[in-house]
C-alpha cells in the first residue's frame, strides 16, 4: 500500500486576495521561485524552489505574503519582550551567516551593551521593524550583513544596503540624525596553521569553491576572497590544522560541554545547519534536547559527535539541507557521506542507532519537528531498553 499523500504546511504563502501583481517579489527572489502566470497575470509561488529567505516578504508593499519565521509582528513583539532584559538603547540586527560572538560585535560597532537579534539573512527584516524599534526607544540600530558576495541568499545583503540607505534618509528627515542605522558587513573564513599542515591536499581537493590549494613546499594555502566559510575542510583536515572563524573547534567543544551539562537524560544533541532549520526566536527545547547551529552540515565534526557521546549524550541528530538546497555548493552531500562512514564505525561498537542524519528544509517547518520528535522517541526507547 502506498502512503497517503499529506499536504505539508509551507512556510511561505502568497495571498492572492491582497496581491497587487506589482512583481517586486518576483524581481527580488534569488531563487526564481516566484513566477507570473502568463494567462491570468497572477503571481505564483513555486514552494519547492523557495529557500524561505524572506526577501519577498520584507519587500511586499501589499503585505500579501505570509511567512512562518521572523515575520514583522513576531520580531517587534520579541523586541518589546527582551528590551527591558538587555537594558540597552542599542539594537544589533545580524545575519547568522556572518555574525561573530558578542565580543566581535562589540569590536565591530563599539557597543558594549546591546539587544542582539540574530536572523538567517538581515534582508528579511522589513522597514516596519526598524521603525518600530526606534519608536520603542532604541537609540542606535546596528546592522551586520554578510559581505555582498558572501550572502547565502544572494540578494539579501545588497537589499539590506539599499534599505538602510532609504531608512536613514527618512529618519534624518524625522530628526533622528544622519546615521540612525549603522550598517557593517562581515564574513567568516577559514584559518590555517601551516605549522600543523601535513600537505595531504584534502582541503584543496574537497573545497567547493576552489579556495584551497597546495603549495609545494609550503602546504595548504587559502584564497580568502573565494572562501565561503562552509567549514568542510576544517571538519576533514586529517592534521587538525584548520579552523573556522566563530566556529572554532574549541568553541564548539565548550558549547557541547555546557549544553550536555544542562540537559536531562536521555539527552539528544542536535547539530544543525543554520540554513536547514530556522529556530523560533525565543524557542526553547524541552529539557532533553539542545542544538548547536553550524554554517553548514559540512562543519559537523566527527570529533564533536564522539565528544558528545563521551560526555553522556544519548543521541546525536544532524540536520542538513538536501544537496539541492545546500547553500554551500552541495557540501551537505559530503557531510552525509562522513556521517555514513562514522555510523559504520559506531556500528562496530553497537552505537549506530544513536546517530542520525536527516535532510530538512525550512520551507516545511513540520518536517524538522517530525524528525526531531521521531529521533527523540528512538533515543528514549533505546535508553529504556538499556535500563531493563
Amino acid at each position, binding site marked *: 500500500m502506498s502512503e497517503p499523500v499529506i499536504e505539508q504546511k509551507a512556510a511561505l504563502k502568497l495571498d492572492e486576495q491582497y496581491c497587487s501583481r506589482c512583481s517586486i517579489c518576483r524581481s527580488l527572489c534569488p531563487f526564481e521561485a516566484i513566477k507570473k502566470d502568463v494567462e491570468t497575470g497572477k503571481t505564483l509561488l513555486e514552494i519547492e524552489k523557495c529557500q524561505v529567505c524572506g526577501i519577498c516578504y520584507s519587500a511586499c508593499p501589499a503585505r500579501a505574503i505570509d511567512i512562518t519565521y521572523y515575520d514583522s509582528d513576531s520580531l517587534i513583539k520579541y523586541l518589546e519582550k527582551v528590551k527591558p532584559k538587555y537594558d540597552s538603547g542599542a539594537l544589533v540586527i545580524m545575519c547568522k551567516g556572518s555574525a561573530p560572538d558578542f565580543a566581535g560585535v562589540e569590536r565591530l560597532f563599539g557597543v558594549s551593551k546591546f539587544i542582539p537579534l540574530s536572523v538567517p539573512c538581515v534582508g528579511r527584516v522589513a522597514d516596519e521593524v526598524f521603525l518600530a524599534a526606534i519608536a520603542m526607544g532604541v537609540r542606535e540600530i546596528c546592522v551586520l550583513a554578510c559581505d555582498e558576495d558572501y550572502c547565502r541568499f544572494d540578494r539579501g545583503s545588497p537589499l539590506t544596503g539599499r534599505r538602510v540607505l532609504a531608512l536613514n534618509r527618512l529618519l534624518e528627515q524625522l530628526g533622528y540624525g544622519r546615521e540612525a542605522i549603522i550598517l557593517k558587513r562581515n564574513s567568516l573564513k577559514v584559518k590555517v596553521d601551516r605549522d600543523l599542515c601535513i600537505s595531504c591536499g584534502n582541503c584543496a581537493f574537497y573545497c567547493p569553491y576552489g579556495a584551497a590549494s597546495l603549495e609545494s613546499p609550503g602546504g595548504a594555502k587559502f584564497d580568502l576572497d573565494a572562501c565561503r566559510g562552509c567549514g568542510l575542510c576544517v571538519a576533514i583536515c*586529517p592534521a587538525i590544522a584548520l579552523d573556522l572563524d566563530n566556529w572554532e573547534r574549541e568553541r564548539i567543544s565548550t558549547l557541547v560541554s555546557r549544553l550536555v551539562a544542562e540537559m536531562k537524560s536521555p539527552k539528544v544533541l542536535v547539530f544543525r545547519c543554520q540554513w536547514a532549520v530556522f529556530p523560533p526566536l525565543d524557542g526553547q527545547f524541552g529539557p532533553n534536547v539542545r542544538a548547536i547551529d553550524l554554517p553548514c552540515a559540512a562543519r559537523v565534526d566527527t570529533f564533536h559527535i564522539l565528544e558528545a*557521546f563521551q560526555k553522556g549524550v544519548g543521541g546525536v541528530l544532524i540536520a542538513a539541507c538536501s544537496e539541492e538546497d545546500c547553500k554551500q555548493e552541495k557540501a551537505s552531500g559530503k557531510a552525509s557521506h562522513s556521517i555514513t562512514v562514522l555510523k559504520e564505525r559506531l556500528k562496530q561498537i553497537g552505537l549506530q542507532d544513536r546517530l542520525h542524519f536527516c535532510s530538512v528544509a525550512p520551507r516545511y517547518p513540520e518536517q524538522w519537528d517530525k524528525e526531531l520528535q521521531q529521533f527523540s522517541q528512538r533515543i528514549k526507547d533505546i535508553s529504556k531498553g538499556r535500563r531493563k
Partner: protein
Amino acid sequence: MIVTAQKPLDEILDSISPYSSILIAGCDGCTQPPRGLREAKTLSQLLELGGKLRGKDFQFKVTTVVKQCDSFLTASALKPQMEGVETVVSLACGVGVQTIAELFPDLPVLPAQNTHFIGAEDREGGILEARCTACGDCILARMGGICPITRCAKGLLNGACGGAKDGKCELSPDKDCAWELIFQRLEKQGKLDRIREFRPPRNYQAKAWRLTP
C-alpha cells in the same frame, strides 16, 4: 602510497584489553586520508566509548609522526610521550608498527590497520588500487607504463591469457584486464610490435630485502 584499511574496532579493543594506559600514534605519511592526528583522536574516542560498553576504562594519549617508517623521526616524536604508557597502538602500515617495535623492545605494539598494497588513489572515484608489487626488477618501460605483475591476476609476463571478457579479468570481473590496457596503450603509441617480444622468466634474485641508501 602504502594503502591500509582500518581494523575492526572489536579486534583493536580485544588487543588493548590487557592494558589501560595507551598511546595512539598516527602516521601522516602515505595512505589517504592520512591516519594523522585526527584519526588518532577519533580512534581514541571510539575505543573509549567501546571500552565503556565492555566495562573497561582506558586512558588514551594521542600523537602523530610524520613518517613512522623513519626510525629517527618516530623515536624523536614518541620518546617524550612514553612515560607511563603500557602499549602503543599504531595507525601506520606494517612498517611503522615494526619501527616502533624495534624502538621500544619492552613494549607491546599493536596495529590498528591492515596493510594491503602499494597503490594509487582515484580521488574522484574514491578508490584506491594496487599498482606496484615492489618486485625489484621494473619492466614498466616495456609495458606502456602498466604493471602486469601487479595488475594481471595471473602476473603474466607474456599476456594476454585470452580469458578476458569485455576487457575484464576472468578471475575478478570488476578488474580491468591489465594486458588489454597494455595493448591499448602500446597501440596508441604505435609500439604494438613490443607486445610480440618474448619476455623470459623474471629474475627473482633481483629482489632485494636490504639496501644501503
